């Protein structure tokens, strides 16, 4: 190996990401006999979104509402996704979700019950039945603890605080990856027969987000740079209810479970405005509808003094709030608001990427030996995700990706690593150490601001073109970014590396949003405010000589035509 590599790791299956999907993929790959290594940019099970997921996991058990069924779950998901979903993937989701949830209890989780052998299920937006299984409002934490226990049981190796920076190819197939070890600043080489991307989304490209700091879209960038196709990147879900005040809490998630447990939305005039936007479902409409409604109330001057709307649970009994919404209670007590006595103030916050790496039912990407699952993959949720469907997605598709990767790995041997690519990547990362230019934080903040303002909840041709100009300007300025040269736990260096990924993802979102000349689901164009039946199409992004290539494709429709 070339001298510039500080350490080499070799495994059958490399799982990038240690949240719900990554952990589940690792478990399944190990069960299929693969030698697995999980590499996480932050701490295992703590730097992804799963651990902070609050509301729940959709699985049509029909314990609370006997008329629910997998068919209904399928239909709700397609209607919620405005017909852009890959229906084959949705069939798999609704079919496997119950079994994967039971399996989490085998690993060690417990979920709330109405009877010793029946789970409690709550209402969530866009669903006609109570379907969402939960553990209070810390469902994801319960899942992640169980997954960690299973990873311990199976003795799976986990490498923390290492950012995977590039996928390495041999004859057009993935053969490994390079990594930056945050703790020691070392440059690492990973040789793998198959790679699973489970890096989650990219909420951090927006100024206001519910996402943890690590969600910078690394997996999207890795896949794109390796030549893989991505799909639906314009479909970014803005969660209707993020915290608005104080500034330090801005964007923090206020779980949909608050509305599921009876929370009502009011504007500053005291009107229950959701009845005007969706009389039937009101607060429990789909997220895209509630987000746009809140946005409009605020934009038209009916917002609160801090620029939000009120979300009220004061009519809900104290013990229900304490039991079912304990996390929300303490999150607001931290900023001096007792939600048992006074309403919360909320406004939308960037939350989830429906789009991602284009996968087939086996979680294969368009590049050989490369798999994706969880939020990093696209296609399950179409133009709008239903709350509770992504925790289910992590488990259903995590397991499939792990199995597929293990089977692929079992049929091949390690490929030769291209030294030139390694050298090029080493140069790319450490070039930031040479200069005394701008800090990466400045550029990051400018990107987040422009994405929020121009590529956010309301978009137009003009705003998107402005954003693309800004992205291109920032890309020029990245070359002048300079970071401190110490290698140990160098957050400046990591941020610079992340920034390049964020710029790439931002461009994918803006270009796809510009191409989609209609409004659908989470994507709203003020210059094309209506849904256009001709746009029942996915936008596919890939890398081509000379830049980003966009094309449209027909969604996979199996049994529910628009």
């Amino acid at each position, binding site marked *: 190996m070339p001298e510039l590599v500080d350490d080499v790791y070799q495994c059958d299956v490399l799982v990038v990401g240690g949240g719900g999907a990554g952990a589940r993929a690792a478990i399944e790959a190990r069960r299929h006999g693969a030698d697995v290594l999980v590499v996480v940019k932050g701490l295992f099970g*703590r730097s992804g979104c799963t651990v902070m997921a609050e509301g729940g996991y959709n699985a049509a058990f029909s314990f609370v509402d006997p008329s629910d069924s997998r068919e209904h779950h399928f239909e709700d998901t397609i209607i919620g996704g405005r017909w852009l979903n890959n229906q084959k993937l949705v069939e798999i989701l609704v079919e496997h979700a119950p079994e994967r949830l039971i399996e989490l209890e085998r690993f060690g989780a417990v979920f709330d019950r109405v009877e010793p052998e029946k789970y409690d299920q709550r209402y969530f937006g866009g669903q006609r039945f109570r379907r969402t299984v939960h553990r*209070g409002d810390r469902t994801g934490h319960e899942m992640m603890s169980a997954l960690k226990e299973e990873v311990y049981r199976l003795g799976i190796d986990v490498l923390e605080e290492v950012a995977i920076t590039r996928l390495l190819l041999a004859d057009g197939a993935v053969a490994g990856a390079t990594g930056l070890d945050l703790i020691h600043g070392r440059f690492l080489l990973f040789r793998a027969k198959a790679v699973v991307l489970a890096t989650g989304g990219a909420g951090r490209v927006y100024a206001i987000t519910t996402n943890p700091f690590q969600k910078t879209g690394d997996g999207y960038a890795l896949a794109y740079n390796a030549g893989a196709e991505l799909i639906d990147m314009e479909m970014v879900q803005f969660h209707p209810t993020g915290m608005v005040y104080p500034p330090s809490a801005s964007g923090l998630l206020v779980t949909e479970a608050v509305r599921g447990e009876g929370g009502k939305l009011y504007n500053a005039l005291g009107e229950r405005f959701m009845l005007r936007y969706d009389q039937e479902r009101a607060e429990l409409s789909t997220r895209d509808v509630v987000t746009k409604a809140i946005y409009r109330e605020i934009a038209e001057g009916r917002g609160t003094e801090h620029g939000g709307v009120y979300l009220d649970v004061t009519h809900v009994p104290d013990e229900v709030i304490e039991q079912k919404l304990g996390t929300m209670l303490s999150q607001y007590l*931290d900023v001096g608001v007792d939600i048992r006595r006074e309403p919360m103030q909320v406004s939308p916050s960037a939350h989830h990427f429906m789009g991602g790496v284009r996968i087939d039912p086996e979680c294969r990407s368009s590049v050989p030996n490369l798999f994706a699952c969880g939020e990093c993959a696209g296609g399950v949720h179409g133009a709008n995700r239903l709350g509770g469907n992504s925790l289910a997605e992590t488990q259903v598709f995590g397991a499939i990706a792990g199995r597929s990767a293990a089977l692929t790995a079992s049929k091949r041997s390690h490929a030769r690593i291209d030294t030139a690519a390694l050298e090029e990547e080493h140069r790319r990362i450490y070039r930031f150490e040479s200069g005394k230019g701008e800090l990466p934080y400045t550029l990051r903040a400018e990107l987040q601001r422009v994405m929020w303002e121009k590529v956010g909840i309301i978009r137009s041709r003009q705003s998107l073109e402005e954003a693309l100009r800004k992205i291109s300007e920032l890309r020029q300025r990245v070359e002048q970014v300079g970071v401190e040269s110490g290698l140990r736990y160098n957050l400046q260096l990591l941020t610079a590396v992340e920034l390049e990924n964020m710029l790439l993802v931002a461009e994918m979102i803006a270009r796809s949003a510009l191409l989609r000349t209609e409004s659908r689901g989470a994507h709203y164009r003020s210059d094309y405010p209506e849904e256009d039946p001709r746009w029942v199409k996915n936008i596919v992004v890939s890398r081509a000589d000379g830049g980003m290539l966009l094309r449209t494709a027909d969604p996979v429709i199996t049994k529910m035509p628009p």
Partner: protein
Amino acid sequence: MRLTIFRYNPQVDEKPRYESYEVEHHPHMKIIDALQQINERYGANIAYRSSCRAGQCGSCAVLANRKPVLACRTDVEDGMLLEPLRNLPVIKDLAVALQSARPRIASLRPYLHRGGSTPGGVERIELSRLRALEKPKACIECWCCMSSCPAHTHTKEFAGPALFRLLSRFVHDPRDVLDRLGIAVSEGLYLCTTCGTCRAVCPQQIDVTEEIRQLRHRVYRRELMP
């Protein structure tokens, strides 16, 4: 407002030093916001961990005025002193080697050991058992208790509150059949002074002292005392 921060890079520094930074304050500003502001404004490149900002991931614990707290949930105060957690090696500045605790956690066999076969469908769990599991399973592994426990600071023969919390999680679980009490005794169950510091610093309000008392009670009933 001014904050004083522990700075130390063991790779190059002979010993730690303290540096003060001016911070522009806003209402309910948390420690994490101040650290981010200092890094962005002054290029201080202070090493610290954070992920969720919402008290759910347990990554960001530090000592604030010598008391372990979650940096994302604690308001900054003028003159506050920020230092890394105790009882773990410092990687750099406020980031400690949480990873170094892994082998001892693994030695506790921290996963369910079931007797016999598992049922096909949804497993029967009594609602009272569910309730009993709530607190011990709420741990976010922030290591605040491990950093402040006098017994664990004095001797590593006492595995520390977080690890007893982990054992207790299995003891409360009706599905687990492994002899966790034997493990608890050998990990220093009787070295706890029941001073209650762990309970006082736990951001999840887990009463680890009570968990340990209950473990001792079970040990007593089964006559497993050392």
